[in-house]
């Protein structure tokens, strides 16, 4: 592996008595799309802010392209593109003026700016909007503009904090296509999300919970971490059935999945399906279906964070 683009080592960030990030360590390889997965308040944004030099770490260190963020924040800032969770555009400036402003503060020279902004307007399909005030744009276009502003100075490293919240699935897909292209060009991306289908697009994921690292690996690695066997159960009445199953020995977890129940059975149980059918043997239950299913990232997330997926769609 080449020199990592981002290194976080033993990072701790406390706000008073509250610990937002608790001894977090990870490395991101150049060109990697690295997903930051975790419930709200788990320390994702705090970590990104430390990496941008906006917050000083309480302990530990962070490096971007081998440069210490705490020691040389301005050098690091020249190497990164940042899309904050907050509204980063100026509503009373037009699309074009917003781009000119960010081009200016990143010191992009005039000729280069012309080429870059034209290319980004083309690629992000902003041509129609150039003269519009940013305040009048829809969320999806705003997000594209914010990304364009973050990419003007051709940063080798991108920090995107929930860039797709409030954006429709089609726009989201195109967003990840673009990240894929950037990745091929060698751009490293750290992206926070709590949308599972987005996480699937990442090369690797780190799952954090209460500021601590819970799991790290490729999406498939994370799914493989779901313990035991997963069954999909269709039963009426489902709520009572869920209560009965939860109380059954050998069943690790029961969760509602649409109209069905997803039941995780411990690995040592010889016949998981038999266990479930036996538990629902009482006459008031009508069992329609018990079939094994492949765990998804959502299962991994739920089981690894102890079932706490708050505000998954905010």
């Amino acid at each position, binding site marked *: 592996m080449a020199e990592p683009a981002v290194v976080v080592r033993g990072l701790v960030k406390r*706000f008073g008595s509250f610990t937002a990030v608790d001894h977090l360590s990870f490395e991101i390889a150049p060109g990697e799309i690295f997903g930051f997965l975790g419930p709200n308040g788990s320390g994702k944004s705090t970590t990104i*802010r430390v990496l*941008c*030099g*906006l*917050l*000083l770490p309480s302990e530990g260190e962070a490096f971007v392209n081998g440069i210490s963020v705490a020691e040389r*924040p*301005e*050098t690091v*800032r*020249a190497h*990164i593109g*940042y*899309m*904050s969770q*907050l*509204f*980063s*555009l*100026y*509503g*009373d*400036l037009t699309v074009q*003026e917003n781009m*000119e*402003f*960010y*081009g*200016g*503060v*990143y*010191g992009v*020279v005039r000729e280069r700016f012309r080429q870059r902004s034209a290319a980004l307007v083309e690629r992000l399909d902003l041509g129609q909007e150039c003269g519009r005030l940013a305040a009048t744009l829809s969320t999806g276009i705003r997000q594209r503009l914010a990304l364009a*502003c973050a990419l003007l100075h051709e940063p080798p490293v991108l920090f995107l904090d929930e860039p797709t919240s409030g954006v429709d699935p089609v726009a989201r897909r195109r967003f990840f296509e673009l990240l894929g292209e950037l990745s091929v060009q060698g751009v490293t991306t750290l992206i926070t999300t709590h949308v599972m289908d987005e996480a699937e697009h990442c090369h690797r994921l780190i799952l954090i919970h209460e500021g601590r690292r819970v799991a790290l690996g490729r999406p498939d690695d994370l799914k493989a971490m779901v313990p035991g066997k997963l069954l999909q159960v269709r039963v009426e009445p489902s709520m009572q059935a869920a209560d009965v199953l939860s109380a059954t020995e050998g069943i690790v977890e029961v969760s509602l999945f649409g109209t069905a129940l997803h039941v995780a059975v411990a690995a040592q149980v010889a016949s998981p399906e038999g266990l479930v059918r036996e538990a629902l043997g009482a006459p008031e239950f009508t069992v329609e279906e018990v079939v094994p299913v492949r765990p998804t990232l959502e299962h991994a997330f739920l089981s690894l964070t102890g079932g706490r997926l708050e505000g998954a769609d905010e």
Partner: protein
Amino acid sequence: MSRRRLLAIARKEWVHIRRDPRSLAVALMVPIVLLLLMGAGINFDLTDLPFALCDYDGSATSRLLRDKLSHTELFRLTGVVRHAGEGELLLREGLCLFVLVVPPGMEADLAAGRPVALQVLLDGSDSNTASIARAYLEGAIARFSSDLLTGAGKRLGLRTTVVVPPITVARKVLYNPALESRQFIVPGLIVTILVILGAILTSGTVVRERERGTFETLAASPVLAGEILLGKLIPYLVIGMLDVLTTITVGAVVFHVYVAGSVELLLACAVVFLVCALGLGLLVSTISRTQQLAMVAAIVATLLPSLLISGFAFPIRNMPLFLRVISNIIPATHFLIVARGIYLKGVGLGVVWPQLAALTGFAVLILGLSVSRFSKRLV
């Protein structure tokens, strides 16, 4: 310091101003309105002082005295009373400033060559006005009695002037020959208006970015604190200079207060002074949590000092030591000396350089303090 980044900030700030025509109109109109209101309202010259007369004599001489007094623009007769007690009632109700009591037998006493004392009841509740009124009145009475003597001498066929005081004062007032307080107040008002407006203009600029969330993205860019602050200052300096020009013009056209010295020098000093005022606004904006708080802080930090202890209304040399010290560390004091010096005395750089140097020092200090207090970190 990168020119490209500095210009990007300045240009962006200029667009903010342009897209907000209401605030721009306020920034350009408020100084004119304030100058018109305060210039017309604040006047230290006293004329038309109301007085009541209690004439126990009722003679030709007492009527002559009454006519002499009420025919000047200094005094205005507002009541004639029959006895002094009635006059005191008028004083109490504020209907007159003093009551002049002419004793019975004045004319007879004068004819017999006996000295006469007139009684004056003065409203001392406004001590400043009362002492000015007393001085005016004593002057008028002195003129009246010397006229009486001259007239009597003429009637007797004497050719010599009866009373010639051995020492007189031949006065020549320089810089403001008519001693109009307006000549002194208008330049002071321009200074006061500029410092308040300047601080208010920039007071919202940094804290607004924090409130709207744009600060975070700005802070994550390599732009330096000094570039942000200076970039934000430049467009407002242009607006502030427009205000300087309009107030100088209004002062000349409406109040007939003209710059005796070099307008260029006045403008050059105004630039430095405005940097101080705008810098104060930036400093406040850097450390405040909300825009409202920043604006209140900007007003408090500039309005009271510039009105009360800058020498605008009250002479600094009469202040207690600690106020004199404070007065010397506010920029308005120094620019006031410069503005009045250039306006009234027409002095040049040779005279105002110490003040200009002090203003430059303040400008550097205030901006330096703002930069050091400006943090690109969030907590």
